[in-house]
């Protein structure tokens, strides 16, 4: 592949939209061509820049009020007297929160979908591009220090060989606009990618998401760190892995 062929593929590659064969070719080219590699890094920089929370406008309360006032809201939420306005607003807000919370717990919000898709794409790419590992080691005391200086946090690295989920290595990856740690475990022939990064979300119990492209996904959050396990391993064993990981 030459630069002229590579250039138009860099955008789709960055977006996870490039087909497997082309990914391999392009990655080979990026390793040997500094101009294209530089374009690729600059694109990553731009993507990180555009994903900053500061650029995302959240809906003002005024807009929410305006919309609610136009909708035929349930009779019980209609204020009877002025003095009740505030209270009913709070109550219906609380009810909406509860409903949302239930919906979140039961179905997982669709806001996680793009992220889950990104994680699955990254998992697939790591397998296809034959780039599962940057550091090959079954020793957590080798893998953990390897991340030093490569990430702005230190991921918890555990070996679950005794539980028949041996650690086989680690990799740097790029998810949701940031650098993340990927730990690779194995059960029989199945590879498990465990993606780890610091998160602003609340602690949550491991929960299975709807499988994407045949891959099972389990997500949880613990002590300000978010975890995403993805594998073609069946859901039951993947959950065992997650529980073993959490308890060791």
């Amino acid at each position, binding site marked *: 592949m030459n630069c002229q062929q590579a250039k138009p593929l860099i955008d789709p590659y960055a977006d996870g939209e490039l087909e497997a064969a082309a990914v391999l070719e392009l990655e080979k080219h990026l390793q040997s061509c500094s101009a294209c590699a530089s374009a690729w890094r600059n*694109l990553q920089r731009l993507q990180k820049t555009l994903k900053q929370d500061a650029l995302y406008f959240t809906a003002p309360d005024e807009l929410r009020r305006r919309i609610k006032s136009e909708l035929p809201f349930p009779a019980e939420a209609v204020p009877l007297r002025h003095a009740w306005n505030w209270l009913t607003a709070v109550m219906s807000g609380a009810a909406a929160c509860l409903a949302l919370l239930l919906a979140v717990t039961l179905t997982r919000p669709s806001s996680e979908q793009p992220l889950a898709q990104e994680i699955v794409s990254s998992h697939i790419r790591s397998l296809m591009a034959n780039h599962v590992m940057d550091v090959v080691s079954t020793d957590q005391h080798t893998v953990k220090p390897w991340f030093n200086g490569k990430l702005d946090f230190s991921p918890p690295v555990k070996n679950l060989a005794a539980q028949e989920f041996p650690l086989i290595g680690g990799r740097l990856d790029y998810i949701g606009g940031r650098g993340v740690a990927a730990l690779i475990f194995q059960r029989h022939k199945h590879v498990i990618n465990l993606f780890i990064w610091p998160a602003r979300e609340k602690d949550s119990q491991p929960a299975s998401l709807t499988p994407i492209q045949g891959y099972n996904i389990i997500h949880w959050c613990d002590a300000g760190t978010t975890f995403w396990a993805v594998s073609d391993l069946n859901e039951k064993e993947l959950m065992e892995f997650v529980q073993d990981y959490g308890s060791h």
Partner: protein
Amino acid sequence: MPVDERERLILYEQKVLPHLDAAYNLARWLAGNDHDAQDVAQEASLRAFKFFGNFRGENARAWFLTIVRNTFYTWLRKNRPPEKTVEIDDETLDIEDISANLEAPSPPFADADAVRRAIAELPVEFREIVVLREMEGFSYKEIADLSDVPIGTVMSRLARARKLLQKRLAAEFNPGDQR
């Protein structure tokens, strides 16, 4: 209120309103100011409620944003002289590829105001695609469906929007190096 109306309202609150931030964000980037963005997002929300009975799909966010987008363009035709839309004219878009000349690798551009300015200066189709791809994370296919254009157009717009942004950001952050 009849029972089915109430059900529709509850479903709408559960499936559509959680995406109000996404709706406002898109409207805000398209319209360019809070006042107009609120008008567009409000009208789109009410239209979404009205047509919610027709919604059968899985992706309520994409469906809602399609309505926001359509509402915006209708509003635009009524309220503003035509914005200079970038008809894919390769002359004007023959953007010099400066990306390869930049120093690599670098942390994200952190000055949000400067980045906001750079995005705001983009033509409207480019702002739209930047929001849909980079902020909302939609796939090419989803963006094509949402904006009613072929995937090829999505790809060329996105590539051009990114080049323009890279150029403007480079100029913002290294004024000496450019022009």
